[in-house]
């Protein structure tokens, strides 16, 4: 059964791990840790949501724990969240998932984790603040800066593409 679970979810969870860490080696470590947690916690699954969502949550938590061990986030002065409009990132829509992942992996770790949690996973700033041990304002600020960073990356990429 363990192997079946692995075969069913490994590709999906490996992609999650890749989003939260900087290299495939770290992602591989997270995969092992995450699957062992899943196997150990199977009896705790209450079937209140989807099994996939439950497994994903374990992997995200494992990734965040690892992030917190390696990166210390400091509270920073608030930057209005909507300084960068979401429309400014629409260029991402035309990219393939792998390319989007590569661009997101260029973000600094603090920006990337907040961006992943809020934009991709759907956590609120309150939840992010609680999980990461920062203020809501810092979470918003990190997200705004992540968007700004992404915008610059996209502008650079597309301007180079356009020039070519």
């Amino acid at each position: 059964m363990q192997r079946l679970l692995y075969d069913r979810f490994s590709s999906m969870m490996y992609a999650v791990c890749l989003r939260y860490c900087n290299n495939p080696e770290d992602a591989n470590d997270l995969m092992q840790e995450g699957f062992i947690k899943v196997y150990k916690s199977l009896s705790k699954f209450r079937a209140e949501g989807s099994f996939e969502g439950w497994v994903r949550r374990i992997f995200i938590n494992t990734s965040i724990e690892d992030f917190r061990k390696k990166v210390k986030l400091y509270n920073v002065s608030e930057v209005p969240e909507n300084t960068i409009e979401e429309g400014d990132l629409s260029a991402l829509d035309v990219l393939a998932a792998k390319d989007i992942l590569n661009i997101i992996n260029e973000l600094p770790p603090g920006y990337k984790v907040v961006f992943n949690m809020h934009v991709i996973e759907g956590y609120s700033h309150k939840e992010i603040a609680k999980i990461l041990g920062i203020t809501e304002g810092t979470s918003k600020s990190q997200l705004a800066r992540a968007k700004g960073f992404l915008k610059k990356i996209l502008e650079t990429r597309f301007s180079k593409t356009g020039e070519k």
Partner: protein
Amino acid sequence: MQDFKNKLYNYETPPPEGTWDHIEEVLNNQKAIKILGYHKNKFLFYGATAAASIIIIFLGSVFFKKNTHSAISKASVEKENQLIGQKIIDSINLNRRILNSIINNPNEKEEIISDDSILRDTPSKYLTITNPDGQPVRISPKVATLIISADNEYPPKPVWGKEIRKWQKIMLNTTISPTSANFADLVQLAANKENRE
């Protein structure tokens, strides 16, 4: 924006080969550790039980010995008390014999006892003797015995020592031969008489 979010959310990429092997290895090791842990716990349980039994037996034996010892101690204390009681009774009897001997001695009765009324009222309680200054002194037989018998072998209590030494000095500071004024000699004579009988 939603588009790239969905793309990323649903993105899948196969992990490198060998990932499952590592996971399987860790899982197998954990099972082995768990089995070892069970045995370890089992041995720990039996060890703890054995240790607890030994401690209980040890404490039980100590408690039993203590009770036996305390019973023995109680018996010895009672025996000692009996001996002390016997000594007190013997001492009182000796005092009475000395007193009777002194009172019944017709030669010295008149000289020793100068106050007959006291003798009549409390014949076994007090003696009136003549001290070295020629003054009559009332003294109980117990005190007299105590004074005479107080020596280095049986020293009196420190608080009494001074008075007893004073009285011994008074009693002995007359003549060597027994006289009615030398109470120590009288007591000695009575004791000798008792021994001869």
